[in-house]
């Protein structure tokens, strides 16, 4: 399971960066989404994946055992997903607006900010 996740995370990061390097606006956003998902899975992976070991202290024990499913990374991922959802929604609306105003999807055509006055 860990190995599979490692490969998936690597693929997501690689695909995300590749998409970001393209000139299309839509691909830029898709790249950012893939990167974000890769980061979320990375947090999930680092929270030690185990089966059937809930983080509950038994009635006869004082502390948690050696191996248990860490709940903190899941809280972190949940927060990160909600945040990236908002940001991505904004980014998608932004590229739609930019497409309407600039009338191009090509990042190389967007040089109004570099023009001299």
């Amino acid at each position, binding site marked *: 399971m860990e190995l599979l996740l490692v490969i998936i995370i690597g693929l997501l990061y690689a695909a*995300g960066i590749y998409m*970001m390097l393209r000139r299309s*606006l839509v691909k*830029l956003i898709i790249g*950012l989404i893939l*990167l*974000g998902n*890769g*980061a*979320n899975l*990375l*947090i999930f*992976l*680092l*929270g030690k994946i185990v089966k059937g070991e809930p983080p509950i202290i038994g009635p006869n024990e004082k502390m948690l055992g050696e191996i248990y499913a*860490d709940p*903190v*990374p899941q809280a*972190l991922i949940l*927060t*990160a997903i909600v*945040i990236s959802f*908002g*940001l991505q929604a*904004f*980014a998608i609306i*932004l*590229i739609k*607006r*930019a497409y309407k*105003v*600039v009338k191009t999807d090509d*990042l190389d055509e*967007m*040089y*109004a*900010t*570099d023009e*001299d*006055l």
Partner: protein
Amino acid sequence: MSNPYIVLPVIFQLFVAVTLMFSWTNKNLQKLISVVGSLIALLISISLLIKVNQEGIQTMQAGGWIAPFGITFVADTFSALLVLLTAISGLAVSVFSVGSIRNARVRFGYFPILHLLIMGLSGAFLTGDIFNLYVWFEIIIISSFVLITIGGEKAQLEGAIKYVAMNLLASVVFLTAIAILYGLTGSLNMADLSLQVAKVENRGLVNVTAILFLVGFGIKSAVFPLYFWLPASYHTPPPAISAIFGGLLTKVGVYAMLRVFTLIFVPDTFLTTVITVMAMLTIFSGGVGALMQNNIRKVFSYLIICHIGFMLAGLGIYSTLALAGAVFYLVHDIVVKTNLFMVSGLIFKIKGTYSMRLLGGFYKEQPLMSLLMAIPLFSLVGIPPLSGFWGKLLLIQGAMDSSNILLIGFILLGSFLTLFIIAKLWSEVFWKDPQILPKKEHIKYFDELKPLKKRAMLASVVFLSILSLGIGFGAEWVMRIAMTVAENLMDPSAYIQAVLGT
């Protein structure tokens, strides 16, 4: 010492933002609430700094969860100082916005978002939890995304795309770094991480994580190889928005770097070398970039980059003196850069252009206002006894102690380039013979504004200029605070003890 009131600067800004949302349609009421709210926020942050100075580091454990399990808020001198500067900048920009922001932008919620941005900044300075820092960063960037696009002009949208793309990338890098750090140590509390990271045996992985943090914060604070989004976007929104961006947004990245690289990762030779080289190249590329520009707001954007290099140099030298220099420079820079972008806004309102080539004769037409504008311009250069001088002096002394001659050379080069650029700007904009500029239809010129709006714009520039002079002439007090901050950064045991209570 647990003190729930340290989050008051954050909660209060949220309160102001919500109140503003309830008066969505009443533009004048919004302006009033924003200014009064910023004033009260300033008083709150002054009282926080005084309290921290008298009683030492204040902490708050959210929900009563003892550190390192819950989220901790910490107000040490550094945090309280930056919260105060945020409030000062926020007040100035809020007053300036009363005069300069158009009603169309106010209708789309400019003021509530401005206060949410200031809330995010205060939160980022006060938090003691690395994941919480990430969340505050996200609040800052989503508010800044709205501010940079509000109005929807062509240049704004194009600038926003570059700004949004790079900031989202920085967030992902930062999140990745947090993930690896959590995997290594199993903790998120910054004070606890300071102890845990020292225990990790795999130093290679620790260094990789440190570099990830460096890249994440480096994009946000616009250091050498990662700064290209800044000059492409900061000159596009209205001047009031540029002012709060130029004053505070890059500085929060510098703050995070100073905090993380003194508390969590104690820099070894490798890291200090990387940071020093980055600082030198940042100073150089920012200075040379500013030389080439004709748009005064672009000149200031490049100068932001150049001066970020000075603060980074303080971290690269990594001694008490140099860090005090970086902190002093940070204080000076927040005030001066906010002011300069407002000054550029005033020039635009009067003349109708940002182009240095077209501007001219400002001194002849507006002698008093020109003298006022000279204060931030020459503070930026750092002609003694103005405020920019003292930070650089400390930095050079610090570099001298560690006999880093090359870095001293670059700091002096950066100062010289700044001097040259400001002298060029002064002669082009203020002394050159005036040119006849065609009146533009869509601009509301300064003369056509109501007296209240004129006074609001001038008042905020005067306020920050007086403060700049105060930092320059009262350098002793600022220096004392900067030295305290630097000593606490070099020896974080007091911070750790205040949070963990052991």
